[in-house]
C-alpha cells in the first residue's frame, strides 16, 4: 500500500500488470467426450452488456452487466449461488474485484472487503476466490485472461490444482469483464 499512485486512490500494486500469456481450452461435444481419456468438465457461458461509460449508469458502483450475466449462467446451469464452490474474479484493479463480487450477488454492496478480511475468500474459506492469484498475481494478458480463468477453473473441478486445490470444487464461476463493466461474461465450469 506504499507503492506510487496510478490514479488516486489506486496504487501501482492494486492495478494488474499487463503481460504476455497464453491459455487454451479444448471444447468437445458429447459424442467425442466419451472417447477422451483426459479429465473433463462442463462449460456454460452467458454474457451481458451495459453502457460504455460508468457515469452514464444509474450507479457507477454496480456492474449491472456482471449481475445479469451471472444470473443468466446460473439459470442455464440450473445451479444456485450456494452451489458455487469458488470464483475467478476479474481483478484488473482492486476495486473491480470488490465490485465484481458484489455485483454478482455473492456479497452485499460494500461488504466484500469484510469477507476478505475474515478469510472467507481464502483457499480454506467459504468462497475461495482467484485461487491461482487472479489478474494481479498471475498476470493479465488481456484477451487470454478470460480463457486463463476458465482453464484454472477446469483444473479445480478436475482436482488438478495441486497446492491451490479447493475442497468441494463441484462447480466454479469465472467472471470476465470488458472495459469498466461495459461487457461481462460469466462462465460456470462444472465437474462431470
Amino acid at each position, binding site marked *: 500500500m506504499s507503492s*506510487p*499512485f*496510478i*490514479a*488516486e*486512490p*489506486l496504487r501501482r500494486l492494486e492495478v494488474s500488470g499487463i503481460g504476455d500469456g497464453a491459455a487454451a481450452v479444448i471444447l468437445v461435444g458429447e459424442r467425442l467426450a466419451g472417447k477422451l481419456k483426459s479429465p473433463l468438465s462442463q462449460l456454460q457461458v452467458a454474457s451481458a452488456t451495459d*453502457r460504455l*461509460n460508468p*457515469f*452514464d449508469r*444509474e450507479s457507477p458502483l454496480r456492474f449491472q452487466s456482471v449481475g445479469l450475466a451471472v444470473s443468466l449462467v446460473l439459470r442455464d446451469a440450473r445451479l444456485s449461488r450456494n452451489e458455487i464452490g469458488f470464483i475467478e474474479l476479474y481483478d484488473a484493479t482492486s476495486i473491480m474485484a470488490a465490485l465484481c463480487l458484489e455485483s454478482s450477488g455473492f456479497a452485499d454492496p460494500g461488504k466484500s472487503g469484510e469477507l476478505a478480511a475474515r478469510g472467507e475468500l481464502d483457499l480454506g474459506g467459504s468462497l475461495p476466490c482467484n485461487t491461482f492469484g487472479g489478474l494481479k498475481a498471475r498476470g493479465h494478458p488481456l484477451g487470454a485472461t478470460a480463457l486463463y480463468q476458465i482453464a484454472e477453473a477446469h483444473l479445480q473441478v478436475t482436482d488438478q490444482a495441486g497446492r491451490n486445490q479447493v475442497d468441494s470444487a463441484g462447480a466454479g464461476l469465472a467472471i470476465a469483464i470488458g472495459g469498466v463493466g461495459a461487457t461481462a461474461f460469466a462462465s460456470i465450469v462444472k465437474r462431470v
Partner: protein
Amino acid sequence: MRVPSYWRNMPFIYRLSGWRCEHCGAFHPVKPLLCRRCRSRRFSAVELPRTGRLRAYTILRSPPKEFKDLAPYAIGLIELDDGTRVLGQLTDFRSEELRNGVRVEAVFRRIRVNGEEGLIEYGYKFRPVAREASPP
C-alpha cells in the same frame, strides 16, 4: 476524437448544452433516438448550469498518450447546480483546494492536440469558483 464525432459533440463540450428527456429527466449530451433510461422519444433542449460541486476526483499519473504533457492532472465528477452529473478535467486548482464538495465553474479550455488527425480540441474544464474576488 474523430472530426465528425467532435463536431457532433461541440454544443455540449463548448456550451454544456444538450437534451433532457421530458419523461424521466435524464440528460443526454447528443440528442438520442430513445432516452437511455426510460426509452421515451421526447426531449427538450437545455443548457446546463456552469457551476456545481466537486463530488469525487482522481489524479492521473499515467495518462493516455495524448495527455502525457498534462500529467499529473485531475479528473472530477461534478454535480452541477441542477443535479446533472458530468465528468471533466479540473484546472487552475491549488492542491489545498482539491477536496470533495468544493464549488466549481466550467471554463473553456484547450483539451488536447490530437496526433493522428491533427485536430486541436477545445471544451470545458472545471476550476474552483472565483477564490479572491468575492463580491462585496
